[in-house]
């Protein structure tokens, strides 16, 4: 959450070396454009995963999770422990990481921190999650390592040719997994009974309870889904950033901005907000100076808040007496 200033650590685009050549012709410009777009969608897909979890928690339990970025930072270390200390192969470690996240970042987070404070308003809980973010960051730094840890790549470092542009296979896999996760979540929320019960809980918990929906279980489910999405994002983003205790700072901020830009109370808004932010981020990195680049997401945030405070897709929430 903290590092508004520091900007994104070595991003997708840096790895891929996508700085455009000013002397290139039209075709090369087009190729650059496609490269940047795919890299932006990859970054944005990850932001979207994190932002969706953020809005889910807000909708179901009015939790503003300032530790959301750290929720993405930590699962990578669960996976590293599974790989390096127990010797599980990579994909097994990812599954183990997701399972531990469900228990720790989903159920335990809700039971130990959220439940006792839920009735006391938004702010104390938001502050407690700030403390949780500090706790997770410092604990990883003190008890695992302060250095960036190598993390296995999702795919071999090869490029795929799309309309004449060489696009990193890694980016395509990230986009595919992120899109797959988002589509699966949308299908779950809209097509299954449990998903619709969750939506009902988010829209009106009192009526949902009267209609016999187990509201408590639905809220717990939202926390579990958030943990799964965060762990998934962790597996996608860590090969690019390397595993480091401070990874959550920018990611949390980006997810927060994406959620606000898209509309705080809409899953669909978080998706659009995340993708938009990722693409804008990557284009700004290529065409603007580093100094202004870090400012772009913030400017986007300011513009959206000033002209559409409920976000691009958000519903206006009524003021109650």
């Amino acid at each position: 959450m903290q590092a508004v200033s520091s900007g994104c650590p070595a991003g997708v685009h840096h790895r891929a070396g996508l700085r455009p050549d000013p002397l290139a012709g039209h075709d090369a410009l087009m190729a650059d454009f496609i490269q940047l777009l795919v890299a932006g969608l990859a970054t944005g897909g990850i932001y979207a995963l994190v932002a969706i979890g953020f809005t889910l928690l807000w909708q179901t339990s009015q939790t503003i999770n300032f530790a959301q970025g750290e929720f993405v930072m930590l699962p990578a270390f669960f996976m590293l422990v599974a790989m390096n200390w127990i010797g599980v192969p990579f994909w097994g470690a990812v599954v183990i990481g997701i399972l531990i996240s469900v228990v720790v970042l989903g159920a335990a987070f809700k039971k130990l921190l959220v439940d006792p404070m839920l009735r006391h308003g938004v702010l104390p809980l938001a502050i407690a999650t700030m403390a949780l973010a500090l706790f997770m960051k410092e604990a990883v730094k003190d008890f695992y390592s302060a250095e960036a840890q190598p993390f296995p790549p999702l795919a071999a470092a090869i490029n795929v040719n799309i309309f004449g542009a060489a696009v990193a296979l890694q980016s395509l896999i990230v986009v595919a997994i992120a899109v797959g996760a988002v589509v699966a979540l949308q299908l779950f929320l809209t097509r299954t009974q449990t998903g619709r019960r969750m939506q009902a809980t988010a829209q009106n918990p009192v009526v949902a309870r009267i209609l016999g929906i187990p509201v408590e279980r639905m809220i717990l489910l939202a926390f579990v889904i958030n943990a799964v999405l965060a762990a998934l994002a962790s597996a996608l983003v860590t090969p690019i950033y390397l595993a480091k205790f401070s990874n959550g700072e920018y990611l949390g901020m980006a997810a927060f901005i994406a959620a606000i830009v898209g509309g705080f109370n809409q899953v669909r808004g978080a998706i659009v907000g995340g993708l938009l932010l990722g693409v804008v981020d990557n284009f700004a990195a290529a065409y603007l100076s580093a100094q202004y680049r870090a400012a772009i997401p913030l400017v986007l945030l300011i513009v959206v808040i000033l002209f559409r405070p409920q976000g691009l897709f958000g519903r206006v929430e009524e003021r109650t007496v």
Partner: protein
Amino acid sequence: MSARSAFGAVAALLVAAGLILAPLGLKPYGIYILSLWAVTTIAAIGLNLTLGYAGQVSLAQGAFVGIGAYIAALLTAKGWPLGVAYILAGVSCFGIGWLLGYPALRVQHHYLAFVTLAFATLAYLIFRNEEWITGGIYGISNIPRPSLFGYSFGRPRDFYYFCLGNLALVSLATWWLIRSPWGRAFVALRENPVRALSLGVDTRRYTLMAFALGAGLGGVSGVLYAPLVQYIDPTPFALLLSLNLLLMVIVGGSGYFLGPFVGAVVAVLLPEWLQAADKLYDALGPVADVLSMVLPPSALKYVAKHYLVAYAVFVMVLLVFSPSGIIGFIEKRIAARKALRTALAAQPKVAS
């Protein structure tokens, strides 16, 4: 004078005496941290007015500290006295705070938080990118300490007393304000804005006033911060400061007069104390031998090594235990004891 207010007066005197005597036994770094506590408390008092009393969420308090600090730095570095910066920063933060209050008339709760968040971000971007005025990331150095009637507050201890004096003035003014009709109007605004409006409270004016006063105190805090650290750059005024001030208000007890004081102790002093936990037994002498039977020195060393982890755990446990903060917890205990005493006093009549 009731027993409770007498107890309160004695406690306040003891704390004041402690604050006045404290720097005599401290090294310069300790005095610096204590000065930082006083300066930060002023900003937290301001946010407590906006948030705790008037109920308007602001994530921009750190930006006002920044504006105050930059005004002080720019003016005093050019030779102007700090008093001019003081007035200018107070007035301009009051004015900007008033303007920032306008969105609060339209949007509430988390949307208001977003608007103020955007403002804080904008202010930070200006501090960082407008090099011609703020010096950008290189900042402004050689900020002089003030002098008053020919007396210089250059040395750490003198400047600490300067900050403490300012804190005392701000505290007295706030104490008066929250007991005045204004303070009651703020609380009415927080508890139920629609009802307050229908009772004839000019909610519009008081909402703007709550923002403006809080922001003005943020500016004052910044004016003191600049000569305290003597070098400023944009980093300390990023969003983190606003969030940290929010933490102080909530952890201390939002809407309680003493909340910001205690909250700033937690956020500014506690991490320092935890970091020095392993030196506790050196200072205690013979008492340490008794204590070390219960709490081994290795445990203290462990805390000192992982002091930020310990700090984060403390804040989480505290908030889970008492979401209304430290002062809120104490107030509730006092109320519970009073209720128990009344119940006990009533009991014999029923029994006999």
